[in-house]
Structures are given as C-alpha cells and as structure tokens.
C-alpha cells in the first residue's frame, strides 16, 4: 500500500489565542485521530511544526538568499504533516476527511509518496 503525506495548511500569522481548555481539547482531537490511524495500522509518521513561518531559500543570480518564510504571495503555511498508508488517492482523501484540521479552519494537501 502506498504512503500519502497530508500537509496541514493553516492561515499564515500567529495562531488565534485560545483558552487552555480549548487548546487541550484541540490537541486531544489531533492525538485521537492519530491514535485511530495507529489502531488501523495506517500511521507512519506525523509532526506539528513550530508556530513560526520558517525560512525560505532562493537562488538568485548565482547566490542563495535566505528570507523569513513563507513566500510573500502565500497566505497559508504548513503547520504540520502526517504520513499514512492508503490504497489510492480516493481512500487517502476519505481518511483525511476525518482529520480535525478542517474543524479548526485549515486545509489539507494530500500527496502520494513515490515509493522506490
């Protein structure tokens, strides 16, 4: 079965300020989803990325420049990722649909890993 990476996109900028109970409820939603994936034997990896926007490196006239990310034109950035196994894109998307990320206003990009 191939692997799929689920890129969790979120709005650029600092995450909204929430009460501790809300944050903990959110964390439990995400960890609960990953645990269900583990139980189904689909879970391969997953991490939350730090809240900053990271750095972007670009080659410009022979030199590599480093700027704060994300790309100026982008309004979204990657806040985390999962790697899960699924039969095909249809199944991967069906699975991703249950991820709490949508409930919290994010988008998910699904990409198949080209297994060698």
């Amino acid at each position, binding site marked *: 079965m191939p692997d799929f990476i689920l890129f969790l996109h979120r709005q650029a900028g600092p995450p909204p300020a929430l009460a501790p109970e809300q944050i*903990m409820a959110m*964390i439990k939603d*995400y*960890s609960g989803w990953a645990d269900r994936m583990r139980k189904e034997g689909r879970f391969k990896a*997953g991490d*939350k990325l*730090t809240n900053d926007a990271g750095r972007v490196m670009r080659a410009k006239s022979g030199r590599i420049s480093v700027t704060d990310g994300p790309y100026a034109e982008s309004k979204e950035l990657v806040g985390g990722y999962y790697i899960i196994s699924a039969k095909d894109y249809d199944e991967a998307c069906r699975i991703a649909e249950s991820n709490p990320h949508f409930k919290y206003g994010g988008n998910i990009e699904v990409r198949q890993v080209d297994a060698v």
Partner: protein
Amino acid sequence: MMVDAADELVETLFRREAGKLSAWLVRLLGAARLELVEDAIQDAFGVALARWPSDGVPDRPAAWLAVAARNKALDRLKREARSMPLDESAAWRLGFAGPESLGRLDDTLALMFVACHPALERDEQTMLTLKTVCGFGVKEIARAYLSTPDAVAQRLVRAKRKIRDLNLAFEIPEGAEMTRRLPALLDTIYLLFTGGYTAGEGEPLIAPELCAEALRLALLLAEHPRAGTGAAQALAALICFQHARAGARVSGEGELILLADQDRTRWDGALIARGLDHLQKAMTADALTAMHVEAGIASLHATAASFEATDWRAVAHYYAMLEELKPSAVVQLNGAIATAFAEGPAAGLARLDRLDGAGKLDRYALYHAARGDLLSRLGRCSEARDAFGRALDCPVNNAEREFLARRLQACR
C-alpha cells in the same frame, strides 16, 4: 486465574517499559517534569491493571501503555495549567507523540545524565537511576539499599525537587560538560553492579537484575560516540567479564562458588569476547584509570584456561598499579592474595602481615580467610585454625559462614 495472569503481565511490563516511557515523556516534557511523568506512567499502569483482566490484554501492550501514559500526562498538564500558564508547546509535542518514537537509546542516555546530575548526592543518583531509568519500585530499591520504602521515597522526592530547580536541558552533553558529568554515570553503574554482585542476604531476587541493568547501561554508554570514553569502555569491559561468570558463581543450592572452583565451561564466552573488545577500545584512551586496571585484572581471570593457569604475575602487577591509582585496604588485600599465587604462599603471607598493621581489615572476613588459607598451605595448622576462627567472628553471610566452617574443619 485470568486476573492473576494480567496482574503478573502488568508487573513484568512495568519493569521492562517504565524506564523507556520515562525517557520518552521526559524528552517531550522536560526534566523539570520528572514527577509529573512518573505519576502519568503510574496512572497508565493503574488503568491497565483495572481494565486488562476484564477487557483482555491489547495486541501491542507496550504501545497501548505509551498512548495511555501520554494521555494521562496530557491530563496532568491540563491540571498544571490551573496554577500557571499552559505550556502550550509541551502540550502539542505530547499530543503529536506516539509509540513510534518510544525506546530511543539516546533518550535513555539523556535521562541518565539527568538522574546522575552532580548536584545530587551519590545515593540520590543511584536511587533515581534505579527508579526512573531502570523502572525499579520504591520497595525494590529499599531492599537493595537495606533501607525502608518510606526513607527511599523521601530521598527520591528530594532528588526530583533538586532536578526541577536545576531546569536541565534533556540532552547528552558535549565537550567539557560531558567530561564533567560522565564520571557520576560511571560511578552509578559501577555501584549498581557491585551492589548486585556482592549482595548479602535478603536480596537474592534483586541482585541479578541489578547486574543485568548495570550491564545494559554500561554497554549503552560505551557504544555512544561521545559518552564512550576510555573509562566508559573499561567499565563496560569490567562488567562484561564479571557478568560472564554469573552463572557459575552460584550452585544449584544457592551456594557461592569461588573462582578457583568454578566450572569455566559455564562462563559466557560471547560476553567475554565482548568484554575484550571493549577493553581494546579502552586502551586507546589517553588516561589510564582505576577502571582500566580493574578491567585488566578481570580479563586475566576471564581468559585463563584454569585457576592454576592464570597469569598471577600479571594479576599481581595490575594490583600494584591499582594500589597507586585507588589506594584502599581491600585492594592491598587482593594484591597480597595475587602475590601468594604468583610467588608462593610465604611471599603472600608476608604482604598480608605487613597490612595487618593498618588494622582496617581486622573486621573483614576475607582478610582472615586469606591468611588462614596461606597458613594452612604452609602447614601452619594451628595458626590457620585461629585465622579461620577470626574470620567467622566477622560479619559474614550464610554461604560464607558454611565455607569458613568447612575450612576450619579441614585444618587438622
């Protein structure tokens, strides 16, 4: 029946998994939260104990326990947020963590550096290592230290409070910091091992486990690229050699068997080979430590075809080196015994009698037993009987008492 089986499994799993779980959760939550981590692990095993007998044991019990401990830690983090701001990044790290990242050896090593921090006292270091790294219970630690569970629990609380106040990074130190902090780990492992190796009466269950843990941790250190210094290699070698003889040291009836009488075919050849490998690596170090010499002596015994074929001159030579590096009455005693085998009982006895002036060994059974042995080999029977008699007046365990009584009887 069912209930008992589940209980037993939970207990076994605790010994095997609690240390791994601690290392994993402390990495995610920070060394200052050692107490929270231990409580969360305790909670998780409590849930297992309550549920498994009726629900059945999950397919992958260790992974199940990791998820349960993580969730309990999340609950405790939430509770912690009542009295201080929520540590959001720790909570997210925890939320995204799963059993896949459990059991990293570097985590165990980093946890050892926490438990053996130089700010702790010697026995706090060993107790905390036994508790958090090895997953021993307070009762077992009390048994190993001939102390009470309450006293051990109190020391552990104090040690954890010190750790919390130090606000340590969870990492394997580098450079000068590694040099500063490694000796305490080596000492702790050495103490774990000698504690298990020379266990007296009353702790037969814990002794082999102490030795096995000391071996595991010594190998872990030795095989790490930064922690595996010459001294760490020497310690690993020493423990390999000594532990290789464990199976031949005790008879089926639980009697102690002396080196001279051990069935050498029962020694663990693979472990001796591993010890030689570590000893060779130890020799590339620029500093010669007492641990090197002790490992050297152990290697001579471990590789000798028989007691008689032992290279006693080399053993005696190493003991002379050890006396310089780590002067102690016991080392001198062992040196004198080696001299007796290298140069004959008269030479050994002369050295023992020179030691007598120190008086430090007067209450040490092995000293009198060694004198008795050499005197009887010289045919000085009545003096030998006196010496064995004095040995019997010293503190000895049952196996030693029977042995000495047999020797006393034999002096006719």
